[in-house]
């Protein structure tokens, strides 16, 4: 008997491979819709942006608004808080980013209020702001500074800055 590896491929081998390839493409093209249906649907993607009137927020205070199902913190920073954020050397930051890259106007800090560790909402009321005067996440102990940057704890990244625009001095559009 001939060694099978030296036998010339036959037309039948060709047919097997071609049929198998078509079956694989067919299976894949049915699998993809089954997987993709779980991604955000059109109505979720179309979620309107949120407009916020910030005129009522006193210096040192902050407001939490809901955007895409998540909290967004709008904080009216004091002079001291801004100075602290600007003066921090980048070398001290786990996720180095300058304060000016995170704000449009220094007195207004806008960040997504979702801890970058496992998604809790950090606390930001006076007295529970953590060791760096920003936010403290009680879930597993992450501390954020007055620029929303991670300083201590298990969270790997700074609080995210959403896309936003000032429509006027007191009106903000997030998203």
């Amino acid at each position, binding site marked *: 008997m001939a060694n099978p590896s030296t036998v010339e491929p036959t037309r039948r081998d060709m047919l097997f491979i071609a049929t198998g390839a078509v079956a694989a493409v067919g299976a894949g093209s049915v699998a993809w819709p089954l*997987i993709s249906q*779980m*991604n*955000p*649907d059109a109505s*979720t993607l179309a979620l309107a942006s949120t407009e916020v009137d910030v005129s009522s927020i006193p210096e040192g205070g902050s407001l*939490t608004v*809901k955007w*895409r*199902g*998540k*909290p967004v913190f709008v904080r009216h920073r004091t002079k001291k808080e801004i100075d602290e954020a600007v003066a921090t050397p980048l070398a001290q930051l786990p996720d180095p980013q300058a304060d000016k890259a995170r704000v449009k106007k220094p007195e207004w800090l806008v960040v997504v*209020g*979702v801890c970058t*560790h*496992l*998604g*809790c*909402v950090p606390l930001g009321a006076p007295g529970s702001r953590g060791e760096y005067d920003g936010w403290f996440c*009680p*879930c*597993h*102990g992450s501390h954020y500074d007055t620029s929303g940057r991670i300083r201590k704890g*298990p*969270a*790997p990244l700074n609080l995210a800055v959403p896309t936003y625009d000032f429509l006027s001095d007191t009106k903000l559009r997030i998203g």
Partner: protein
Amino acid sequence: MSGPSTFVPQSALGRWFESRLPLGGLVHSSFIAYPTPRNLNYFWTFGAILSFMLVAQIITGIVLAMHYTPHVDYAFVSVEQIMRDVNWGWFMRYSHANGASMFFVAVYIHMFRGLYYGSYKAPREVLWILGVVIFLIMMATAFMGYVLPWGQMSFWGATVITNLFSAIPLVGEAITTWLWGGYSVDNPTLNRFFALHYLMPFMLVGVVVLHVWALHVTGQNNPTGVDVKNVQRDTLPFTPFATVKDSFALVVFLIFFSWWIFYVPNYLGHADNYIEANPLVTPAHIVPEWYFLPFYAILRAIPSKLGGVMAMFGSIAILAFLPWLDTSKVRSANYRPVYRVFFIVFVLTCIGLGYLGAMPAEGGYVLASRLLTLYYFGFFLVILPLLGMYETPRPVPATIADSVLPQGGARLQPAE
């Protein structure tokens, strides 16, 4: 151990059916004539208890699903309606919620039993791995079930656990969004969790069938860890011996279960879960259900997001490799004096991790979690492989009969 069945139905109709579908023979050979080692102790009754709990969860669950609404605006209210308005609704819900806990009590005893008596060793590796698969599906089912009442712990537990996947490099964020069907835990998440929570117990049924099949191929292990050598002397038929013992243990277990349902139905739950989910406020102290606490403690012991997630999943995955990590040829810890001590410390470590998982992640608690996490992994990765080489086991009885019968059952006459 089970050969072709010699079962012959009594009635003509039975014989007619049996020759077309030998269902009776299957039941007879698996649960009536099936030979069980004669020295099994009460730790061997938890398999039956677990099977009962799975059926109980499915029945109470289907009843709850008839009254429950998987929508963020109605879920919480519908569960309150089950509690207050639906006839016997409180009973169904308390049975289901506490039933999940009892299911885990039983599975942990069942698993530690396997660990103590070396039930994972050859030839039972596949049986053991199927058990690990059952454990994983159970955890996923219970996690998604806890999300359904849509209280604060439901919501924030779901948020923290789904965010674990965001630790995966590059694709993590995309996977999390995909799991959520949005940008946070929201209505699409609740809806799909309900669909999966309904599905997974039936997947469990399938894997349990494989688990029992594998068990009936290799036969049960027993407290001596010695193989059955003589079916006449070493074993007893499943019915009545195991059937009656299992039923008695089940009744005792049901008394324990009832105590939770009727006297302290909310003790194992969390008060925050009676507050409706609020995506803008995280409770001050998030804790998972008690049966997840040891793994939660491991997650928090590691000071890095990806590292913590890997350690947590690793602590479960490592169980699947146990048959190859333990190098000792002796199965039962009764004859392994040194392993026995390490085993007891391991059980205490798991309980300790459970305690630490419920404590805030700060100061001494973190340090203690790290030490216990180290022991947890050290037990599997260092102690078990080395112990098999250095430990001197005590002499093992020659046969099962020798260990429990006078003169090793020499006077027992073969039944045939």
